[in-house]
């Protein structure tokens, strides 16, 4: 029985079928980027265990890749593999195992986001690209602000968010991936507070350019038994944050991209864009920064293809913003990835294996034809 399972799991046929399914996923996942954008497509087809098409569930990228990993590992237990003639094949497959293990680690443990810094200012936070959070900030104390942060995973309709130190409860009424504000034409209901007194927060179709999506949230504040109880709405990137007063304490509420706080800060001294002379084609972008740790600044130059690596984080020159008044803002991509060395090692191993295999088999394949 055990043998049979190993035989099935290690069969090259299983590998072929997984490959076929993976190819279908890749094609569908690529073409659908046209309509739903890269991030949504990646979530649905590649970073998922299952996805459904209509009522039928299908295995997603993670299941297929995991199956391929199992297939590769169990192949190693085959008796007839361990022959000197197959040394190349063995090495290639070991490299393949490493590549998939690395992919798994990256999928589970890596995080990426962006850091937006204006010239002359500094930052120690990384904003996630996609995941949002609801921040309730108690600003009543002069000396410090107290943050209560609820992550996007909690934004399910009807979910209650509470904290012992918060004087009120929050009930999620609606969360929208992409929303827009429209002015109200008729007077709002009396239960609405803040922005929703004058505007209506409306769900719109996800933009395929993920950067253009502005998530929105509608939630109910209750339990304070004051005027502040009621329904509130927030939209990502709104210029004036919502505030409420409860029993003399003042709270700011904000829907923001998930923030990670770094043990160091980055100060942008100068952002530079160099064009090929006389053209609109950019030759290079670079950010001249100070890496500030324990109040000691260290000058660093981050360029295209030349990132800064520090404490497990890597900072890349990703983009920039130019204001009409000429102020420049750099956008750095910040990535933490424990699996990043795996592709490097596995590519070397796989290449060596393939080369060995070719050395063994090529003379036979290119024999002079006998006439």
């Amino acid at each position, binding site marked *: 029985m055990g043998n049979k399972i190993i035989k099935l799991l290690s069969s090259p046929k299983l590998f072929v079928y997984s490959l076929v399914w993976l190819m279908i996923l890749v094609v569908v996942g690529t073409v659908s980027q046209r309509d739903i954008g890269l991030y949504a497509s990646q979530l649905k087809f590649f970073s998922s265990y299952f996805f459904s098409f209509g009522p039928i569930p299908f295995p997603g990228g993670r299941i297929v890749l995991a199956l391929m990993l199992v297939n590769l590992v169990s192949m190693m237990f085959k008796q007839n593999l361990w022959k000197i003639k197959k040394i190349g094949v063995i090495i290639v497959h070991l490299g393949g195992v490493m590549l998939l293990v690395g992919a798994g680690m990256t999928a589970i443990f890596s995080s*990426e986001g962006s850091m937006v810094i204006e010239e002359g200012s500094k930052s120690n936070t990384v904003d996630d690209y996609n995941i949002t959070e609801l921040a309730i900030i108690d600003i009543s104390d002069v000396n410090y602000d107290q943050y209560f942060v609820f992550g996007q995973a909690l934004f399910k309709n009807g979910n209650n968010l509470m904290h012992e130190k918060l004087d009120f409860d929050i009930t999620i009424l609606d969360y929208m991936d992409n929303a827009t504000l429209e002015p109200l034409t008729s007077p709002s209901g009396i239960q609405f507070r803040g922005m929703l007194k004058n505007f209506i927060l409306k769900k719109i179709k996800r933009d395929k350019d993920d950067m253009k999506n502005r998530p929105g949230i509608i939630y109910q504040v209750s339990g304070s038994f004051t005027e502040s109880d009621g329904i509130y709405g927030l939209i990502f990137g709104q210029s004036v944050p919502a505030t409420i007063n409860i029993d003399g304490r003042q709270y700011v509420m904000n829907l923001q991209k998930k923030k990670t706080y770094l043990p160091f800060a980055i100060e942008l001294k100068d952002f530079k864009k160099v064009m090929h002379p006389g053209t609109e084609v950019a030759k290079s972008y670079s950010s001249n920064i100070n890496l500030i740790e324990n109040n000691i600044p260290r000058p660093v130059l981050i360029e295209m293809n030349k990132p800064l690596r520090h404490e497990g984080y890597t900072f890349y020159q990703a983009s920039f913003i130019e204001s009409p008044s000429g102020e420049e803002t750099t956008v750095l991509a910040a990535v933490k990835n424990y699996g990043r060395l795996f592709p490097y090692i596995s590519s070397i191993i796989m290449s060596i294996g393939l080369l060995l295999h070719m050395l063994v088999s090529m003379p036979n394949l290119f024999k002079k034809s006998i006439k």
Partner: protein
Amino acid sequence: MKNLSVISISIIASTIMLYSSLSAESFFVSDIPIQEGGRIKPLDSFARNQSLAFYGKRKIKHENLSAIDWLLNLFTHPEKGLDQKVFNLRNPEVVNALGLTWTNNFHKYSYNELFPGIEKQLPLIREIFEKKEVDRDVFESQLVEIYQNVMKFREIVSSLSCLLPLFSVYDSDLATNLHVEPGQLISYAHVMSHRGSLFETSQGIITKPESEWSVSEKEIALLLYNLQQTSSDDFAKALKIIPPSKNDSSGLWLSPWELFDGRLIEPHQDKIIKSLESYLLARFENNIENQNIALSSYKTGLISHVGKKVDFSNLSKERWLNEADLFTNSLVFYLLGFILLGISWMIKPVVFKNVAFCSIIIGFCLHTLGIYLRMVIMSRPPISTLYETVIFVGVVIVLISLIIEYIRKDGLGIFIGSISGSLLHYVGFGYAADGDTLEMLVAVLNSNFWLATHVTTIILGYGTSLMAGLIGHIYLIEKIRVPKDSVRLKSIYNNMFGVTLIALFFTLFGTILGGIWADQSWGRFWGWDPKENGALLIVLWQLMMVHMRLSGLAKPDKFALGMVLNNIVVIMAWFGVNLLSIGLHSYGFASGIAVNLILFTLFEIVTGFGTYYWAKSKNKVSIRSNN
């Protein structure tokens, strides 16, 4: 065979000698450096690019005029140039909109013919400019294109008018002030550099009524009037041939007209502008000797420029590359090889096949020399644009074909090499028709290390994959033609599998290298971007074929069919993902390519499955007849 190798070696040697005859000493007018598209190139390339943009070809064919001569004639005889029919209009709708008549065979129009129509359509053109490029229809984008071309042409025509001998003075005092003989023709530039007290004198004239002007004052007034007329050309800044001043940090070169905007002209700039003026004069008078003197003094001016040095050997290399047209010549030899192979099949003497082999070798050498020169001129690895991928895949396939031919000696390699080499040259010419093929790169591609490793490897992968597919075709055809020659079939099958392994090596390694580059510059190894997915699909497909063979799911016929279909995957990854116009890799143009892709896909499906089932049915018949 020995004789033939001698011949081919001698031809290769002569090409190399021809190339090394490029001495850095001689400096031609077509070598004059000019800044265009972010780099310094010879005037010859500039002229060809303009001719291509206006006329649609790299020379003015119907007048049998080279691009550089056409350009220089424009400078010396602007009025004639405005009447020269150099604008190629492809769309009768545009022609009618400009108030012209569409003739059936010759759609060339002159500036003077086009300009009145353009002027009338200005409101419409302005409206089109308001629209985004993607929203414009064919008529609108062509109208805008012709408008821009006409404006650019006007600018080029006027760009050296400041150096043309247009004025003469007869008053002896004035002539002495301007350092000329009375009656001698002089240029705007000459007057400006010797203007001295001219403008102070002119102050006196303005305050007097015209009737009281003396003869010499009248002449000054006329000269000033003419100067002003000419200076209306000072918008013409297209010809960036003057190296910047030594204090300039922007790296921007200047056009002659820009020198006369009141700035301080540095010695090297003065020397260049004066030499160019005397060159134009000598050309005007058809005086070859004076032209050469002027050019050598032009070169002295360039050398005395203290900024970033001008690389004269690169300029002459590029000019030589333009003239030699290596890829067209290489195509000729590939086609010749194909014809000779055909002859050898029909009348069977081995000698024709050997000559065909040599012809492919010569074509391959020209092809490689062209790629090598492009690398030297741009000082970067061979592949950085879509055009270059096409040229490089061509050379890779021909090289493998040559190796296969060398081993097999049965014409198979010549057949594959000549067909694919020629086809890819044609595709390349299609891309070259878009403009200068030596382009500067956007920031993220500006990394010679990764261009050399990832890009080259992946393109080698494309080439070898296509090669495996071609052998797949041949295998299926041979299976129909000689189903019983199992030795031959087996050897072709083995070759195909060998090439597939090489292809797998390059595509796999190239894709992973691409991931590593992405990790280095964007922070993620893999982002499911369309181009990445395309490359991945090739790898997966080839992995699938290799494992299908291993597990017995694919017998030789099916394997051959699989590699034929792999061609579709390769072409989709190579060109198709650009059609999605999303993702970080959309570096190529996609317009017009969709139809070709669909045709190619249909062709591969029909021929692949067609030959596969034909071979199968034939096999069945032969088995039955054996029974």
